[in-house]
């Protein structure tokens, strides 16, 4: 049962087409890596899946149970965040907001959930630290925790390793892999790290100027060798 199906997607912005003819689907527990050159439409595709952009043509359908707007998202860092005065706990708690409720405070259940996820990602000791004073790897883990707080179905990660050193990158990939394998959370990751994509992902979507590839990692490897 596919969790997310894209049919004949045509993507672009301001009248410019960046990718077209994209057809692929993702099942629960899949680990999809989206590869491609700069400007091939990776980020546009991400924003379209998140429904922040509208596709120029084609359709995206979500499986029942995966409500619209219920995708955990790890965006690329914005300049605003670099000097934002917020504690780690405040940021992760904001992932609880999508459960609605008009009561203007976070519930005890929300707090407990956040605490559990912080422990899972080994950042509980950072709870009261200021976000902007953390290392790049720690910041990414905080944002990952926030995404996990928002949903336990599907995570979309936009270049999560950008700006991290080698050790930080490896650590982050391990955590993401664990989330995927142990908690069976579907991962869609935008990346330009081919090597990591091939060793972790179950499926690859390669966006290209002429045509795009979608298939399992094995198929992708096979195709590359020819």
């Amino acid at each position, binding site marked *: 049962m596919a969790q997310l199906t894209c049919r004949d997607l045509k993507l672009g912005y301001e009248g410019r087409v960046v990718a077209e003819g994209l057809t692929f689907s993702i099942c629960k527990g899949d680990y999809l890596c989206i590869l491609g050159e700069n400007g091939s439409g990776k980020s546009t595709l991400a*924003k379209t899946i*998140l*429904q*922040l952009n509208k596709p120029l043509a084609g359709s995206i359908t979500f499986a029942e149970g995966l*409500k*619209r*707007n*219920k*995708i*955990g*998202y790890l*965006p690329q860092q*914005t*300049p*605003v*965040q670099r000097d*934002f*005065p*917020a*504690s780690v706990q*405040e*940021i992760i*708690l*904001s*992932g609880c*907001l*999508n459960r609605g409720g*008009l009561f*203007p*405070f*976070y519930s005890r259940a929300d707090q407990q959930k956040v605490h559990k996820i912080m422990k899972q990602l080994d950042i509980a000791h950072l709870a*009261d630290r*200021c976000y*902007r*004073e953390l290392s790049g790897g720690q910041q990414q883990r905080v944002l990952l925790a*926030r*995404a996990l707080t*928002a*949903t336990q179905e599907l995570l*979309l990660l936009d270049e999560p390793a950008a700006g991290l050193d080698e050790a930080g990158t490896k650590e982050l990939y391990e955590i993401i892999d664990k989330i995927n394998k142990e908690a069976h959370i579907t991962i869609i990751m935008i990346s330009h790290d081919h090597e990591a994509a091939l060793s972790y992902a179950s499926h690859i979507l390669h966006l290209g100027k002429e045509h795009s590839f979608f298939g399992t990692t094995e198929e992708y490897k096979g195709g590359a060798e020819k």
Partner: protein
Amino acid sequence: MSEALQQIGHLLSFPFAMRALIVGILIALCASLLGVTLVLKRMSFIGDGLSHVAFGALAIAMVMQLTNELLLVLPVTILVAILLLRNGRNAKIKGDATLALLAVGSLALGYLIINLFGSGGNVAGDVCTTLFGSTSILTLENTDVWICGIMAALVLLIYVLFYRQIFAVTFDEDFAAATGINTRAYNLLIATVTAIVIVIAMNLVGSLLISALVIFPALAAMRVFKNFKAVILCSAVVGVAAAFLGILLSFMPSPTGKAVPMGATIVAVNLGVFVIFALIGLLKKFTNK
């Protein structure tokens, strides 16, 4: 010193002075709360721009001899604020130039209109009043106090009720939208509140100095505190304290014997507080290392 205090006590026994103090504090409270959001959204200048637009609208209202100028000024300013803040962060790049254009445009047109069609003899005085804050804060009536009180209550209520959403939309708009928060609606709310606060606050410090009320307390708070809640609370306290002190200082006799402009005094106090907080922030940094 005690003489000065006595004089202040004497002044505050007059209802007009008391009203000025109450209104000043309420306005400062709203402006400083809002300031945190605007500074973090990289929109510090929006207050300045909007107040220029409000000045233009005010000039038209004066020429039309409306009995209540707010009826024209408030809707116009809210409309412009919504247009500017509509797309949130994404509008910033183009919004920057648009804002500058709108601001100086309305300022020039407003001044032109007042000069051409103004009925009062004292054009320079009128303009100076709108730009740098009026002594009219001393001639406030009870209705003005009520309007300010209601607006302040409204802004406070919005901040208490939507505190979490305002945080989410300010920190990361894309994430908020992706996980199902109606960011458009909250941007609209922030824009409307901004416009209301600016228009009301123009009475106090005038359209040229309004940015100070909005950004100084927030910036001061951000030097010292490192989580959002503390920054918001500290900003509110700083804003209120600076307004209180500034208004009292402006009541005191000046060394040169001339009248002390209230708006400029409040801003000067804000500046002083900012410098102190910046020093504390630096000190904290060094002691931590």
